[in-house]
């Protein structure tokens, strides 16, 4: 290989190597541009997916954009994102203010998904045997959030539109009496969302009477924080149990903390 006798073949081989190098170069450039474009395209954190949707990252990978869930929705609440909709193209989403999820018991959208981007397991209870029983109340489409500054109920006006609209009334949405500090003598009946029950169906957002809804659904990842597991809710037995699992050594060790507090408290100047 590479000897003098191959001399006459060299131009052929060179031509081939050169064209391969060119193609590889073009493929690399194209691939990088393509990757960059897609990375920008998939970054829409505020999309409300159908019930049973797997995590957004998995959802974007598994959804083939076929629209069968959209067709299955008896209320035409689901929209298949068109280019220009500012959502990942071809994927299903809700616009709660226009057309919220009605929480059908047979969850036709989830049941119809052919690819597993909508996973029935996530909206089912085990029926004790091997079977699964659909339970729409387990859906986590999003979480309703109330803006207390624009919610007229918190102004003291008697409005319970969202409360009445909630399919999980008194569980996901309650009204709590609060003292009206402005008058000093009236009560405010303010709506409160409970994340343990709210499915993010969006009925409250549609029902809200303010110009732009004062209660609106956000994806759970956007609406919720995450407390560190270092903290424990006192006087709550279920949470206090976590203390039993805590490791022996939980202190943060820094150069300063190696010493006992007594050392620096007893320093000169104190």
């Amino acid at each position: 290989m590479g000897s003098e006798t191959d001399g006459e073949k060299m131009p052929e081989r060179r031509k081939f190597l050169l064209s391969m190098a060119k193609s590889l170069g073009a493929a690399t450039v194209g691939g990088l541009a393509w990757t960059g474009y897609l990375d920008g395209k998939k970054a829409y954190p505020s999309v409300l997916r159908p019930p049973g949707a797997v995590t957004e990252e998995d959802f974007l990978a598994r959804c083939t954009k076929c629209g069968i869930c959209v067709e299955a929705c008896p209320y035409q609440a689901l929209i298949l994102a068109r280019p220009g909709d500012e959502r990942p193209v071809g994927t299903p989403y809700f616009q709660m203010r226009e057309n919220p999820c009605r929480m059908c018991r047979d969850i036709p959208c989830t049941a119809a998904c052919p690819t597993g981007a909508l996973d029935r397991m996530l909206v089912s209870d085990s029926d004790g045997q091997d079977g699964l029983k659909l339970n729409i109340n387990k859906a986590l489409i999003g979480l309703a959030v109330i803006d207390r500054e624009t919610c007229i109920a918190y102004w003291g006006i008697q409005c319970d539109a969202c409360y009445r609209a909630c399919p999980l009334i008194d569980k996901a949405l309650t009204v709590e009496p609060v003292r009206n500090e402005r008058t000093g003598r009236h009560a405010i009946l303010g709506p409160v969302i409970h994340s343990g029950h709210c499915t993010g169906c969006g009925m409250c957002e549609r029902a809200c009477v303010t110009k732009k809804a004062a209660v609106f659904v956000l994806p759970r990842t956007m609406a919720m924080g995450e407390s560190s597991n270092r903290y424990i809710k006192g006087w709550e037995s279920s949470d206090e149990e976590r203390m039993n699992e805590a490791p022996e050594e939980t202190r943060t060790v820094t150069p300063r903390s190696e010493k006992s507090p007594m050392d620096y408290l007893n320093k000169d100047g104190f």
Partner: protein
Amino acid sequence: MISAIRNNRYLILRRISQVGIMLLFVCGNLLGWKVLAGNLSSSRVMGMVPLTDPFAVLQIFASRHLVSADALTGAVIVALFFGLFAGRAFCSWVCPVNMVADLAGWLRKKAGPELDRAEPAISRKTRYWVIGVSLFVSLFTGIAAFEWISPISMLHRGLVFGIGTGWTLVLAVFLFDLLLIKQGFCGHLCPLGGFYSVMTRFSLLRVSHQKEKCSLCLKCLEICPERQVLQMVGRQSSAVLSGECTNCGRCIEVCRDGAMKFGGRSYVAKHDPTIA
């Protein structure tokens, strides 16, 4: 009239097939017909049989994700149908972009022979590179790369669910084919077409050529959107064996000698009496 229909019989059948399939999808969405629900990426026939684009599933695998058994079954059904039997017929009998490309090709021909004969600036092998790149991009981004930019999906999904600004991409394909490269998208770039070419390498349904009937008018080569597959014309009697043939049947229609016809390929060792 009768002869015009006869001379375009496969073209007419293909348009009926392409338009009919899209209409069934549209009726599935608007009227709730059960015949075909979904679109060409994934669909369900009569509310039961799943069909899935096997190239989309391949990209999902490349993105390090799994699909449900349903989607996998659908992909296997499609792969078996085209891979064992129909060849690359998806491109010419199902895909709606074929109509866009054919319109561009037809206008290009009308525009004059200079444009029509111009040498393409890129190789027909480019599509296989695009397949490779799309799988790599799927791996790096974690999403099925081609499905996010495909003008094919943009068109068939758009026809069923509303196209938004996606028409610009379809127009881009049209102008690319019309002004830049003849059969530029379907015949050079499209990785889905390339994928079907590879997958249908050994499918049964083939156009076959009979050398002794051929008068070398070469009309078939002129009309063929993948003319490299017809290299046997006038040279030897054989089936069109390349997976790049879309089984569109145009060569059969334009042949006045009856030298082309649909047939099955023979999988046993060939013995061609005309060559002996």
